[in-house]
């Protein structure tokens, strides 16, 4: 779709939104606000000629959507129902799809589509011929090769590591509209997810006011928006999970059992969620003395049904667990759990606090466990085995995918928790979270490709500010992918914010305190850090290359760095004093830092070379001869040798 048609679609969609939900005085008031935002958009367009028109357009659209959401949340004359919410979601996702698919689909997406194409064209799941004729794939990705570890058959069959259920679900959509139809199928699940979540909130006794307020923060915010408009199994999984939970709460086995089966069919890893749900049910019934033989039979039947996806995977790949092994279920080292847990919480690139801050409110609900709805508790308990399995994995952050991939299915549960606690939250904190969310939506929709990250420990804001000011702002964002100096402190701050910072006090200083923290961070960012990561944006490179290269599979397993050869140089801000340079060279190298030269002997592993920076400020490191992979440079604390 051309940008002009996207704009036309967006304008029509945005004009249609109020007609779905707003009435009377609220509608008129919204019309006035809407007119003002259009006027503002036109003036900005006329007066800021240097503005990226696409970014500006997306920003205006998001401002209008936020205005609409505000009227839905606070308006006095709002026609509110789950079906209307779903209709609004349908409109917004319809606008968002062409915006989000301006770049070729990426990550696992083209492989799911390839699987759909194989089903449609060959009625099989063997992708060998699909890889041979990539010019025919609707994804436009002619660079695809089988993913690492994809199963193969004895006759040269090439299978996908991905479960075929999502590909099957996309078949009707693909037949109707190719790639757009396939994405529309996922968006349809997004719409159903919104409807189910709102209905679930009603079931659990959440007030309309709270449901209306959380609606947009859930449906049109990361990660749901980003996954509802691209080809990933996460949003359909969230839908199946919510419906399973609703079925369980309503005592309707015929509903929750197929939904649970659908969840596991989408991704084998969700088997742990299903097991968690069944175990929680069993435990709850046992505790309340309601466990009867009929009930037990149902749970056993459910457990047996959940083996079906494994049978399917066995038939396809010859292995019931596909590319996974049972050993993955064994407990990992404790520090891996800590890294995964706090990473999910506070990592700048992939953590909830920085990528989907609305769900901090859901985490707050966990700290008020006894006051939360039963459905919330059931959802959290059910997902515990899955989370325990996820945390120690090296790719807890989701790999090459938009942030929080592995947690999308849990977001409706956290949204329910947030809605249930709505009246207990600081209004200022909600405002800050809403503003941050709007910023994330603008960024994610305007630059969809930036949601795929090379996992180098920086995040988009840090890298952008670093590039702008030529100083290291990335170090101010906690990173658990490449653990930095602020990681554990940042995690502690996020925990404190969840426990104490979000609740309502008589004096609400959330916004000014956030502003002060922002100012302190800005001031701190202007000063040189105690660690220089040589591949980071703030380092000005003159020659050399990134290590590992951009698209190296499982990049997170490497110590990132910057490769330099004789003549290459780089400059960065650093304070005076003794530093330790972490680097590896197989050839040996001579480098110069400031006015001193250092000869580095070849070695198999990384070396720590003491270096002295005499005058702080912008320092130049030059590779005079040889070749060297520069990892990082740490400032020595006074007294350490």
């Amino acid at each position, binding site marked *: 779709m051309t940008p002009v048609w996207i704009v036309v679609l967006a304008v029509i969609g945005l004009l249609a939104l109020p007609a779905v939900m707003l009435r009377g005085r609220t509608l008129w008031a919204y019309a006035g606000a809407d007119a003002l935002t259009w006027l503002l958009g036109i003036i900005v367009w006329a007066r800021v000629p240097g503005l990226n028109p696409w970014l500006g357009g997306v920003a205006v659209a998001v401002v209008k959507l936020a205005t609409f959401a505000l009227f839905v949340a606070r308006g006095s004359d709002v026609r509110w129902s789950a079906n209307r919410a779903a209709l609004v979601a349908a409109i917004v996702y319809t606008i968002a799809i062409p915006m989000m698919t301006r770049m070729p689909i990426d990550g696992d997406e083209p492989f799911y589509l390839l699987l759909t194409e194989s089903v449609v064209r060959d009625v099989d799941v063997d992708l060998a011929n699909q890889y041979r004729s990539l010019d025919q794939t609707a994804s436009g990705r002619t660079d695809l090769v089988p993913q690492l570890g994809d199963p193969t058959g004895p006759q040269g069959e090439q299978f996908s590591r991905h479960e075929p259920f999502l590909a099957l679900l996309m078949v009707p959509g693909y037949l109707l509209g190719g790639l757009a139809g396939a994405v529309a199928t996922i968006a349809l699940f997004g719409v159903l997810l919104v409807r189910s979540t709102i209905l679930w909130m009603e079931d659990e006794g959440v007030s309309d006011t709270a449901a209306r307020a959380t609606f947009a923060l859930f449906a049109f915010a990361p990660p749901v928006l980003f996954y509802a408009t691209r080809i990933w199994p996460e949003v359909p999984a969230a839908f199946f999970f919510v419906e399973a939970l609703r079925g369980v709460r309503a005592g309707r086995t015929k509903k929750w059992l197929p939904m649970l089966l659908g969840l596991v069919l989408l991704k084998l890893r969700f088997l742990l969620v299903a097991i968690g749900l069944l175990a929680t049910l069993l435990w709850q019934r046992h505790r309340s003395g309601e466990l009867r033989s009929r009930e037990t039979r149902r749970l056993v039947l459910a457990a047996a049904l959940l083996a079906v996806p494994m049978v399917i995977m066995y038939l396809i790949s010859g292995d019931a667990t596909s590319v996974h092994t049972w050993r993955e279920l064994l407990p990992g080292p404790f520090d891996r759990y800590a890294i995964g847990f706090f990473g999910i919480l506070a990592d700048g690139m992939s953590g909830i606090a920085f990528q989907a801050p609305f769900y901090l409110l859901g985490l707050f609900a966990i700290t008020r466990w006894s006051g939360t709805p039963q459905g919330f508790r059931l959802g959290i308990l059910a997902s515990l085995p899955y989370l325990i399995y996820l945390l120690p994995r090296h790719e807890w952050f989701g790999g090459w995918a938009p942030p929080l991939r592995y947690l999308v299915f849990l977001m409706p549960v956290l949204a329910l928790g947030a809605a249930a606690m709505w009246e207990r939250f600081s209004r200022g904190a909600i405002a800050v979270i809403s503003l941050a969310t709007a910023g994330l939506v603008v960024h994610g929709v305007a630059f969809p490709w930036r949601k795929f990250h090379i996992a180098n420990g920086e995040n988009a804001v840090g890298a952008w500010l670093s590039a702008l000011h030529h100083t290291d702002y990335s170090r101010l964002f906690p990173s658990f992918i490449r653990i930095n100096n602020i990681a554990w402190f940042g995690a502690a701050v996020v925990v404190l914010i969840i426990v104490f910072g979000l609740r309502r006090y008589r004096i609400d200083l959330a*916004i*000014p305190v956030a502003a002060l923290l922002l*100012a302190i961070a800005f001031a701190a960012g202007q000063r040189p850090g105690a660690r220089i990561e040589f591949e980071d944006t703030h380092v000005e490179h003159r020659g050399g290359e990134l290590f590992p290269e951009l698209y190296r599979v499982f990049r997170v397993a490497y110590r990132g760095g910057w490769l330099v050869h004789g003549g290459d140089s780089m400059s960065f801000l650093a304070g005076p004093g003794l530093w330790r340079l972490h680097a590896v060279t197989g050839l040996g190298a001579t480098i110069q830092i400031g006015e001193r030269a250092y000869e580095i002997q070849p070695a198999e592993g990384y070396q720590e070379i003491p270096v002295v920076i005499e005058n702080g400020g912008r320092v130049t490191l030059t590779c005079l001869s040889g070749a060297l992979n520069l990892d990082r440079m740490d400032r020595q604390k006074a007294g350490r040798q």
Partner: protein
Amino acid sequence: MKRIQWIASAALSAYACHLVVLHATLRPVTPIDHALPLLALAVTALAAVSYPAVMLAVPLLMVSEFAIADEATRLFAFGVVVAAAFAVTVVKDEAGQRWLRPLVVTVVALVVLRWIPLADVMIGRELVLVAVALAIVVILGGGPIAVAVAVAAALATPAIPLRTLALPLLVLFVAFLARVFGLPRLRLAIPTAAILGFMMLFFAWSGVTARALPWFLRVAEKKPAQRTVVQRALTPGEAVRFDVPPAARALIISGGNIAHLSRGALLGRIEPGGLELRIGNVADWGYTRREHYYGTRNPLPSDPAGRLQGYGYGAWVGGAGRLALPDGAHSIVVTADAALPAGSTLQVEGFE
């Protein structure tokens, strides 16, 4: 308790903004940047009389300060944030705050529009102006539109010379008469939000809004054309030949001491082509300066080519106009009209 909240909010916000300005060392810091703590106080006052969420303007101002390097874009971004804060404040229902909000909004608007840079403020005149503006608000019943009328009247008053204060007094008198003859109290919140928002949008150059409003109604140039500077002043009756630089398409020309001439007055000619230079496509170079604006009769040139100068209420825009050169001309002759008043000049500023 609420008072403590707002005092603490104001202090924290102003200090946060001060910190950001203090560390914005990588580029020139304008008087508007320096006024960021004042803007934080202004926003806090608006939030205190409307929605607490209006305080979000503070972090937005700070982000604009440290994230937008280009000066014009940054100051405009400040304007967008401040305008939004004002617009949201004036559209709020009036329950419980019929008088406090309009009075606070009026004072805050005047401070933002006229008191930056603080060093240029003539405090006595400004206080009189604030008093007159508040009187207008009270006379008109305190509705949102009353605020817009009061602020617009104050904005249009240069206060130099002192007699220009007659303008807001005249507005006050008309408002009084209108009320006496039965004008009801009007609300008109959305139009007020648009008017007030527009004024605040360009608060960083509020002097230009006040004295050359059409300047901001144009589409800004995508990339300013390269200008070859000439800077030659022609006395009445003087004719000078200029070589046209290669690729030049337009002549940039202004006048000196011609601010009192009305639209259509002949200033000179360009040959070949016999193009007449008149007030309307050229203006006095400094006619929008605050201290010279009283008595000027020049309109903004039809294709203005003057540059923005200064900040806040002291900002002004040059009166130069852009005139298309005759096709294919390698040289032109510019003649200042012999009937121009003594002491006035026609100024060829350059080619674009």
